[in-house]
């Protein structure tokens, strides 16, 4: 028997100026479903649910929620009615406590004669946190002292109440640590069992296939197809879904296909006995033409290793060496041919509010300089070369980076370092929030870099891409290396997870 329909959208259309995000979409959601929504960047997958949850109105079309016409005026209105959405971006209020974040908008529940009882609120918040299994977050603490991952969990706690009927999880898992993800997965399955509905928007195909009961694929503002659980379990499901998303055969080749771990004998970058905070006496030798993958939970220290290798941190011991010279600052790193792509692309790797060209040439400015003069023609030539090589979708180098899609932004941050001719590239979460089509192109690019003899330190929270790309894999846990393994065809994620948790 088909389950009761909880939400329905008919002929939904959404335009942003000249861009059409949704063409004419019919979408039905039933109780007990965990519905995956996949599609490339700009396919409209986030837009559907952002309209349903009151973030923005549709241009055309109608919606029904629990059988009644539905037209929310704001996200708060939608949340009170039972539709909650957890967004991609950080959405907590800085400068106040965890408890104040959880109960923002509901302060009246804890107040008498206009005065809020903070101890009462704190107690209630702590109880909720415990019930979600994240008691390590203390309700009385300032939200700012928690990591991005923990703040995301606080957001989850704030969004989900007993009244929540539909929970929309929009690309949230990329911002969560593995433990955080487990908490989220447990929660959505529990909610589905209670007859609520979940919409799961994600780029991570493995996650979608593992967690969802149904799947809807979007492309260019249209719904392309629908897969049931049985169809998702079919042997070539991933290939089918990718084909539906991209609209063309992207081929079987995704990660590297060879298992040749040979590389140059020359050491390109060496971390010698480095210590920083909880990281003690860490050693690493990265060779020319080698890809070293580093994996672990997000707080395991692997991201710090990337920053250390680039000279961003003041070490308490040991040194970072390149060609026998010590690297202490990013400037020294760059001058010796090291590039770094931060995992925080929008805040650290790119100047969003600036042209593509200025971003690409920024590290190369000293090289372009002739007696203080920097020729605009030389800048344009360099930038156009990278735009062409990476096939960055844009009108030209003067276009602002904040108008690009996530994948194209990431290409710009890659372009910065290839323009500079970096020989060693440290990439922290290089494919975070990037479509599969672009991901595939990036993996090919990383493989080409290896062939050119570039040394790559690839830090990632996605084990599958590390297994797929690295010559040697280092797993870290609690700031220590717990496992090292050479590239081989039999390597599986499950073999590695035990060393991470």
């Amino acid at each position, binding site marked *: 028997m088909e389950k009761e329909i909880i939400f329905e959208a008919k002929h939904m259309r959404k335009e942003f*100026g000249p861009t059409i995000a949704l063409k004419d979409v019919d979408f039905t959601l039933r109780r007990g479903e965990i519905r995956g929504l996949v599609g490339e960047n*700009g396919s409209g997958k986030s837009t559907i649910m*952002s309209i349903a949850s009151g973030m923005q109105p549709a241009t055309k079309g109608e919606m029904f929620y629990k059988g009644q016409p539905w037209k929310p005026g704001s996200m708060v209105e939608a949340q009170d009615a039972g539709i909650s959405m957890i967004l991609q971006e950080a959405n907590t209020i800085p400068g106040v406590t965890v408890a104040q974040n959880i109960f923002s908008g509901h302060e009246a529940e804890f107040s008498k004669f206009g005065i809020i009882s903070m101890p009462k609120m704190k107690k209630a918040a702590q109880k909720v946190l415990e019930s979600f299994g994240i008691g390590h977050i203390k309700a009385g603490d300032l939200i700012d002292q928690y990591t991005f991952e923990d703040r995301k969990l606080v957001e989850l706690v704030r969004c989900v109440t007993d009244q929540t009927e539909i929970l929309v999880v929009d690309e949230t898992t990329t911002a969560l640590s593995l433990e955080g993800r487990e908490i989220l997965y447990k929660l959505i399955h529990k909610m589905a069992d209670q007859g609520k509905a979940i919409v799961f928007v994600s780029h991570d195909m493995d996650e979608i296939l593992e967690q969802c009961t149904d799947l809807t694929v979007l492309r260019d503002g249209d719904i392309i197809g629908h897969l049931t659980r049985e169809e998702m379990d079919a042997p070539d499901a991933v290939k089918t879904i990718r084909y539906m998303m991209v609209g063309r055969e992207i081929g079987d080749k995704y990660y590297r296909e060879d298992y040749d771990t040979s590389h140059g004998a020359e050491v390109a970058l060496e971390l010698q006995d480095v210590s920083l905070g909880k990281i003690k006496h860490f050693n690493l030798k990265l060779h020319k033409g080698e890809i070293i993958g580093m994996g672990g939970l997000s707080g395991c220290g692997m991201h710090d290793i990337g920053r250390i290798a680039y000279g961003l941190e003041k070490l308490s011991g040991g040194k970072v060496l390149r060609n026998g010279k010590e690297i202490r600052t990013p400037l020294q790193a760059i001058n010796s041919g090291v590039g*770094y792509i931060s995992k925080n692309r929008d805040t650290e790797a790119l*100047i969003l509010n*600036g042209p593509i060209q*200025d971003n690409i040439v920024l590290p190369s400015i*000293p090289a372009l300089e002739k007696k203080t003069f920097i*020729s605009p023609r030389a800048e344009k030539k360099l930038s156009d070369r990278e735009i062409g090589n990476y096939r960055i979708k844009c009108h030209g180098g003067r276009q602002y980076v904040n108008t690009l899609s996530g994948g194209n932004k990431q290409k710009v941050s890659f372009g910065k370092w290839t323009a500079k001719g970096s020989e060693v590239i440290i990439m922290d979460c290089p494919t975070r929030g990037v479509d599969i089509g672009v991901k595939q192109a990036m993996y090919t690019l990383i493989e080409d870099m290896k062939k050119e003899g570039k040394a790559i330190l690839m830090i990632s929270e996605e084990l599958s891409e590390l297994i797929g790309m690295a010559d040697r894999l280092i797993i870290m846990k609690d700031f220590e290396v717990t496992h090292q393994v050479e590239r081989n065809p039999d390597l599986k994620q499950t073999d590695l997870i035990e060393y991470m948790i």
Partner: protein
Amino acid sequence: MTAIAQEREKQTLQQWLKKHGSSVASIGGLLFCAVFFTITTGLKGESIWSASKLSTLIGDVIVTALMAVGAVFIYSLGNMDVSIGKQVGLYSTLLVLIGNATGSLPIAILACLVIAVIIGIINGSAGELLHMYSVISSVVFMMVLSGISTIIYSNLGTRNISMNPGIDLTLFRQPWFMVLVLAVETAVISYFFYFTKFGKYARAIGANQTATSQSGVNIILYRVIPYIFLAVCLVTASLFQMGYTGAASDSTGTGFEMNVMVSLILGGMPLKGGMKSKVACAIIGSLTFSLLAVGLPIIGVPTKMTFLIKAIIFLAVVLITCRQKSGPLPR
């Protein structure tokens, strides 16, 4: 024309306006003032473009414009400097004192430039090294300079000093020379701002300091250098300020920092700094500001009212150009 083509044209116009809105507002503001005063002062029988008024206009615009052009670097960092007026006061005083003591204006200028560069370095690095907001460190700096000026004038036992008549300052009162110096300064600053790493790094730091630092830019160094450019431009401005009257006093330069700020904002300078900062903002803004200052009294607006009118115009421009627009972005 079909409806679709019309719609597309409308959207292209909207996008163009979104991108160039602040330039349109600032240039539009200048053109409006120019046309408005041409007509109204003409009706009053004393055209703003008459030789005498034009020379007043140039005399009014020169000091503000010379300062504002130098301040473009600072504002592009997203910084603000409220010690500008006191610096001009001190440099004017030093020009007179050193000029009188040595009997040579070139020596006075050179000595002043050396002092200005030192002051620029201290002014720029104080905020960086002490991790303060630049505006706060410049307030402290303003107070220090006030103190120095008070000590100088109380030691001299007077509140104003004049340049020895033996030193000829007539050149600094010539409109053609004012225009020439402003043109040269604008060209030099534009070169450094657009075609060298100093300007490129300053704008990049203003737009995203972390990303700029991770691209290998020494943030402290390139945050301090703009203050040196400013200091040199302030000495140039002081020359014309002092040269106009041949004197300096303990109140010379008072409030100039506000004139610079208002001019830059009128010219469309983004207060957050960054990639949209332009040298032209300084020129456009100073011209608008001076047109108002010279034009309003001619059309019979009492001097007591001019501040209010300037404030209203300033508010209107700020509302058009500097206001934050937010809303959900398409994804």
